[in-house]
């Protein structure tokens, strides 16, 4: 059994690390497709990337129901670490989650199973935090939408392969929808619900 003493630590400097992590995520959300860096300053349980851990410490608390995919949920150290450092309640029902942590993108459930918000309150939707292989190399994706001057190019190696096809639901549902934060170690890219894919290579 892991005791609390054996858990990896949280932020060494709670206040300033949370601030710099937030600014990276905010810049990522404001400029979709741009790769932002998170300066890792926290211990990280296995299966959780350094960027994911920093985002968890920055944004999660007792007000944010959290859904974990099987890859994350099967690791007691991940669950304990999240519980100890953030206090976020882990829920089984993905449709009431504020955040969903996805360790294995290939097994991403249908996006309709997450909270999509309501027409009156579209902000009450799940933010997906999806760990991916790379945000520097891989298939090119050409994106457009608010926050992007013309179009933006993202090169990424992402699972599920059809993520952007699935995100088409954002187009039909807007202003309801799903916002996605892609994490590859300490690199972060956000795909808010307003971002559209123009083209992609293979």
């Amino acid at each position, binding site marked *: 059994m892991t005791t609390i003493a054996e858990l990896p630590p949280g932020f060494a400097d709670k206040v300033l690390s949370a601030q710099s992590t*937030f600014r990276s995520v*905010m810049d990522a*959300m404001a400029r979709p497709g741009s790769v932002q860096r998170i300066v890792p300053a926290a211990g990280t349980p296995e299966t959780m990337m350094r960027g994911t851990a920093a985002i968890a410490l*920055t944004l999660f608390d007792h007000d944010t129901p959290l859904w974990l995919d099987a890859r994350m949920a099967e690791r007691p150290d991940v669950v304990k670490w999240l519980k100890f450092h953030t206090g976020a309640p882990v829920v089984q029902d993905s449709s009431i989650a504020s955040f969903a942590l996805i360790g294995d993108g290939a097994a991403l459930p249908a996006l309709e199973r997450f909270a999509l918000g309501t027409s009156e309150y579209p*902000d009450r939707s799940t933010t997906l935090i999806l760990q991916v292989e790379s945000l520097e190399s891989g298939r090119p994706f050409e994106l457009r939408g608010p*926050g*992007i001057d013309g179009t933006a190019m993202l090169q990424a190696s992402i699972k599920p392969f059809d993520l952007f096809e699935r995100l088409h639901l954002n187009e039909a549902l807007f202003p309801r929808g799903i916002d996605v934060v892609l994490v590859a170690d300490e690199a972060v890219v956000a795909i808010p619900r307003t971002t559209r894919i123009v083209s992609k290579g293979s």
Partner: protein
Amino acid sequence: MNAPAYNFAYLDEQTKRMIRRAILKAIAIPGYQVPFASREMPMPYGWGTGGVQVTAAILGPQDVLKVIDQGSDDTTNAISIRKFFAKTAGVATTTATEEATVIQTRHRIPEAALNENQVLVYQVPIPEPLRFLEPRETETRRMHALAEYGLMHVKLYEDIARFGHIATAYAYPVKVNARYVMDPSPTPKFDNPKMDNCPALQLFGAGREKRIYAIPPYTQVVSLDFEDHPFEPYRFNAPCALCAAENSYLDEIVTDDEGGRMFVCSDTDYCEGRQAAGHHGSLSAAPYKEKAQEASNG
């Protein structure tokens, strides 16, 4: 020295997390008003508590903060908020628009073009553009959900019927990303075109009304109008009396009780910058200063 009595940037971490989550959703849904649990701040409502909370949630030690009130860096509200963050966050402050990374503003957008590394934080009194047309929050929320904005066009039309032109001069409604009608806060409509396709991120905080909303960079912002009555920014037809600027937003200042008045740039940093660069208006004190200096040198 005593231990600091407050957390960095005044707000506690739980509050910052809550505000930060609201900011992220606001950016993801441009123009939509995200409810947030606004806190009591050590200043009264109406003094920018919404803007202060947004600024406190984003501010870091590397930031350089500028605060303006009606374009001026030197009014009570601007000075006290600047001092507040200098004291609670220890951040550098400036009056120069180009040097700032975070600009908190009440009722103006700076004249100097903003860049990608800047965040503009607006203080908002009434975030709901439909509020004076429909007092019920449940109804305005439904109108936004259905994108039912006919009432706003009726209001602008009534302006035309009554005055012959759209007489709304400030808080002029805009449509963001072709979806949400948004109140740009009581900025003069002169500033509306600056919001469109702006390289800087724009965040709006309404403390009393507990709403945060945003315009991401490079987002379409259109001022509502009619084909036969297109939107026109308004400006007093005069050059600035201090710096002779022909394209800046002007304040009218009454100078005596006999109808005397002068028009000066509302953006003090812009006006001072122009004067320093050698532009002089009809009432500029600069030539006298220069003469005084010459006299003292000679």
